[in-house]
């Protein structure tokens, strides 16, 4: 084992943790905004998958990773738009629609991949990274954290940005009121529907880009069902974080790290089935909940459609 602990290996483990964590981070942050506004967005898995597909196709056909992310955001938002129309405007059941959209996204993307790529499996070239001066010189940490594709830095910057929006802007107030007492927001002259729609669309964009990252940078190609439940982990992260973006970041890294740990132990020849290590992050979170039992308090109106004047 010990002669394994080379700089290169540790670096790649840490890098792997980040790579695995970024999609969860984006999904979690996105979901957090929806939930703050009172929409339980179960469709996020589907938004990620569609984002992964559209993002990949765009990057593959244009050769630009940035266009890929743009397309991924657009793809995610397209699904989110459906969700907004059905659940926010019409007030359909959010769980039914969310699950339906996820199933639909799985089917459609798999179909498209089948007709388009199942004989060629096109792959993208590696991404060029943007090393941050000085920081990227730090051994291990440096290359793992500060020598990444610029998008990774942007994703992490979303955390302080959201903190700012939540705490310091009118939008932050609107979102919170929409989730805790929509009637109050309405009476204050702000449209609940518009606020929630915006929140859901933002979630779609974030989830979409998360999927794109997974496809274009995480894997370098698109494979049906490749998100494999990342969206649901995003939902859990958002709920646990209870409106604090910093906690989403922490949670995403925890999950990413545990995946890297799996690899580390195996490559080290430690004989534990992957399933056992897979349980670690979930067990950890459950343990936290059991020990501290802190009331995972969610917005009062979460999941409830808002209809003006109904009591």
């Amino acid at each position, binding site marked *: 084992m010990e002669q394994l602990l080379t700089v290169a290996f540790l670096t790649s483990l840490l890098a792997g943790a980040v790579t695995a964590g970024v999609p969860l981070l984006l999904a979690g942050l996105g979901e957090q905004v929806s939930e703050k506004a009172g929409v339980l967005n179960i469709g996020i898995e589907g938004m990620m998958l569609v984002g992964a597909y559209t993002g990949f196709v765009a990057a593959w056909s244009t050769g630009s990773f940035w266009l890929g992310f743009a397309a991924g955001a657009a793809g995610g938002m397209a699904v989110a738009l459906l969700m907004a129309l059905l659940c926010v405007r019409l007030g359909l059941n959010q769980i039914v629609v969310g699950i339906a959209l996820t199933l639909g996204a799985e089917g459609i993307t798999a179909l498209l991949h089948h007709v388009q790529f199942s004989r060629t499996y096109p792959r993208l070239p590696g991404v060029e990274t943007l090393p941050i001066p000085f920081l990227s010189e730090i051994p291990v940490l440096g290359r793992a954290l500060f020598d990444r594709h610029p998008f990774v830095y942007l994703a992490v910057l979303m955390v302080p940005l959201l903190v700012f929006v939540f705490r310091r802007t*009118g939008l932050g107030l609107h979102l*919170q*009121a929409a989730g805790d*007492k929509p009637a109050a927001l309405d009476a*204050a002259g702000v449209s609940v529907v518009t606020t929630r729609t915006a929140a859901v669309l933002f979630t779609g964009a974030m989830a979409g880009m998360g999927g794109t990252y997974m496809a274009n940078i995480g894997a370098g190609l698109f494979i049906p069902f490749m998100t494999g439940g990342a969206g649901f982990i995003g939902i859990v992260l958002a709920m646990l974080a209870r409106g604090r973006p910093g906690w989403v970041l922490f949670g995403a890294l925890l999950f990413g790290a545990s995946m890297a740990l799996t690899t580390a132990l195996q490559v080290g020849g430690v004989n534990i089935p992957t399933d056992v290590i897979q349980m670690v992050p979930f067990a950890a979170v459950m343990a936290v909940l059991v020990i501290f039992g802190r009331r995972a308090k969610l917005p009062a109106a979460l999941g409830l459609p808002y209809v003006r004047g109904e009591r």
Partner: protein
Amino acid sequence: MTEPILSVRGLTKRYPGVVANDGVDLALMGGEVHVLLGENGAGKSTLIAMLTGLQQPDAGDILVDGTPRVIASPREALRLGIACVYQTIMLSPTLTVAENLALGEPWWSRPDRAKIAAELAAMREDLDIAVDPDALAGDLSLGQQQQVEIARALMRGGRVLILDEATSMLTPAGADELGALIRRLAARGLAIVFISHKLNEALAFGDRVSVLRLGRKVGELTPDHIAAQPKEATMAEIVGLMFGRDRAEAMARTPRPASAEPPILQATGLSLQVPGGVGLKDVSLEVAPGEVLGIAGIDGNGQRELAEVLAGQRVAAGSIRLAGEAIDGLGVGARRRKGLRYLTDDRHHEGTVGPFAVAENFVTKDVGASPFWSAAGLVDKSAIGAHAARMVADFDVRTPSVATPIGRLSGGNMQKVILARELTGEAKVVIYAKPTYGLDVANTEATRARILAAAEAGVATVLISTDLDEILALSDRIAVMSAGRIVGTVPNGPDARAAVADLMVGRVAA
């Protein structure tokens, strides 16, 4: 005669089965407090809803400064300077006062706490509105929350301020403060609409009175007209308009001397810590069969905690005996079976299960009990239906059918349902919490009559109310609660009002 700021012509609103508003005309003058009266379901809230953009009229015009306007949304109403303090508080509990006041700002704005705090300070100066801008709205008392809503209305440059049953949840003191505030606002030239079920306060605060009945405006009393005649005459006139017939003023009861009978309910040394609340501090009380013990006090001084402890919803230190037997260990159900009943003051959120049928709500406290459920626990719907039918008749509950979801009923009718639920069976001791708030005069009278009838029949009664008139009208003895203690108990009588008032404000009576 000056132009009205806002006037409505032939306003009509239909709901399935009801015409909520039927050709209503109204003119709101600057500097005038326009009182809107009417029984439960008369159409007051609906009228307001149309003025504030929550509902759209089926017919009629709304004119602002003489020009017809379509008020499509609350935002539109606010833009036109029409602000409203709704029957239900419209603040986001998890936001601070300042944040709530900034809630209407555009999404890109940066809420300016300092500026808002300054404006609040200014209002403290000339309007005596005193709220901490950094307090969470959810932590404020109802009175303070209403002040915040009024503050918001003013900050939005409201020229028309509407208050729908703003006083129904306030203490007499709180109501008087609000009234004073209203007058000061009117003095600034605002047009104010004031909805209430309490005639005397309506007359005390208002200049002009309009009365709605079954959606129609059945009369308007001008300031001169009101000034011209004695208060009693005006009241009689209003009651006549509201109910279509003249009525005696609300009945009062001649207090009985402390009864010889031994107390049936004895609570001694009840103490309770409530994080963030006053809780209970060594509260003791006794009630005898047929006796009415009034519990006066400003809202939030431990009345709810006391009621819940007595009813068995909360556990507190100290001991409670019912007919000599210790019942501290028993839960709500067991106490209820022994004849101890509790009428909650929150009919909407605690007393009833909104989506459930009226019939089911009659028995939600007797689930599993015969005759409604068999020994095997199987429901007997016919028994429940029959019981409901009887109760609806006895208590004059106005509902389309016993299968109607109770959430659709007006507060007044909801109140009748839960009152019936508490008074049926072997009621030995009944605790009433604010039994008549939000109810119109007719419902209020009906409810009080029930309470007295039960007492006459030997029920030991604990009457918790923030409405001093109600306490004085019904009680034999009056205990005053303050900061979780019973600060004194006085016999009801001519000089009780003064004594109670002294106790309330902390000037301990001789």
